[in-house]
């Protein structure tokens, strides 16, 4: 009379190809979502340090409203809510990318803002004093230095966004978590499958951390 539980390697082995397909979707959503988030975040982060009060406020409203609401609600709003108002259908995959993009954008905005504000005023003044325009100073002097300071918190955000994609199960995107659920629904091997899913997430997040670490050190050596 045991507990009746015997760990089954065979089911893991059989599920891996399916889970990898799910992982591929997870990575796609994360990559495109973060690209969008990086663009949105840089834009709104800079808006927040603009001297124009209206621009500043618009950036602020975006950041506050996204940070102040759960990702899950944002996902469902984008997938189930918005299409009703706009009278159009949105593919789950697109909704997922947009949700991750809009969500990470708000956090990236704060990272961008913080990094820019941490660059000493003297750098801007030195840029302006040799005749660089405001935009040139931003592009050639401030941005490269600020970007370096953004890497560690950006890495953190990449990992958070990757994990957030698991919430997309609610809209039926066949990413890693959803794939795991579906496999379990047919074989009931919850322990093995969730363990495999967890290990897959972990391998990706650890790789992200590793790559960013290398990037940070490379940039460090140069200056």
């Amino acid at each position, binding site marked *: 009379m045991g507990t009746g539980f015997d760990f089954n390697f065979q089911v893991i082995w059989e599920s891996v190809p399916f889970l990898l397909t799910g992982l591929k979707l997870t990575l796609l959503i994360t990559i495109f979502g973060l690209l969008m988030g990086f663009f949105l975040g840089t834009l709104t982060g800079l808006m927040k340090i603009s001297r124009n009060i209206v621009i500043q406020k618009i950036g602020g409203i975006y950041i506050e409203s996204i940070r102040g609401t759960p990702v899950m609600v944002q996902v469902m709003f984008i997938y189930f809510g918005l299409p009703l108002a706009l009278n159009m259908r949105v593919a789950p995959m697109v909704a997922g990318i947009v949700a991750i993009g809009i969500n990470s954008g708000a956090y990236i905005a704060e990272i961008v803002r913080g990094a820019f504000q941490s660059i000493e005023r003297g750098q801007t003044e030195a840029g302006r*004093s*040799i*005749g660089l325009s405001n935009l*040139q100073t931003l592009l050639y002097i401030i941005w490269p*230095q600020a970007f370096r300071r953004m890497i560690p918190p950006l890495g953190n955000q990449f990992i958070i966004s990757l994990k957030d994609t698991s919430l997309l199960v609610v809209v039926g995107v066949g990413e890693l978590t959803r794939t795991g659920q579906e496999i379990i629904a047919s074989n009931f091997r919850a322990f093995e499958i969730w363990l495999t899913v967890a290990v897959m997430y972990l391998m990706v997040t650890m790789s992200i951390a590793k790559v960013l670490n290398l990037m940070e050190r490379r940039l460090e050596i140069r*200056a």
Partner: protein
Amino acid sequence: MIQIRNLHKSFGDLEVLRGIDLDIAVGEVTVIMGPSGSGKSTLLRCINRLEKITSGTVIVDGQDVMDKKTDLNFVRTEAGMVFQQFNLFPHMTALENVTIGPIKVRKMNHNKAKKLGMELLSKVGLEDKALTYPDHLSGGQKQRVAIARSLALKPKVLLFDEPTSALDPELVGEVLEVMKQLGREGMTMVVVTHEMGFAREVADRVIFIDEGVIIEEDTPEEIFSNPKHDRTKSFLGKVI
């Protein structure tokens, strides 16, 4: 070269400059002295419009810095600035620090800019540090690179804001040496400094500022040996 008339500058309620009149001729070396908070740095910063002036006029090489039609980026290349904290760009080599201005502002091609940059670095004695990043330079070396960076735009006047105040004493000499050489070559310079030796040797004129007004101006010999105003006397008494 520079004409300043009735210049006022306030930060909120605090009036830092209270009516400055000053003319600086081509080739002249002017040293500005005064207690801290007297407005010396602000005066320099108003000349190349790092600070917006409250009232009065500042004309640099015929261009009114407050005129809306004036291209400020252009005015700034005419009046180069050397800062107390050097403000070198840490992500660029010494050479890149010097060449970014010519490349981005003057649209000079890279090879020409590089050649100019190397000439300027050797002028300040640092051609062997061309590929070094600022973090690996001493304070004196950083300031010399900063001078080369300003010279790269071929400015008509160089403004120095306490260029040696952040340096260890043994590094001051090398920076002053470069500045003296520039003075001898006929560069128009306005220098905020407390280096009496430099003033005595290079300056055509010393201006003493306190509480936002010019108290006294004269040749260095006259002002150091025979200051007329009490405030100048007590200040010089403390500095020397």
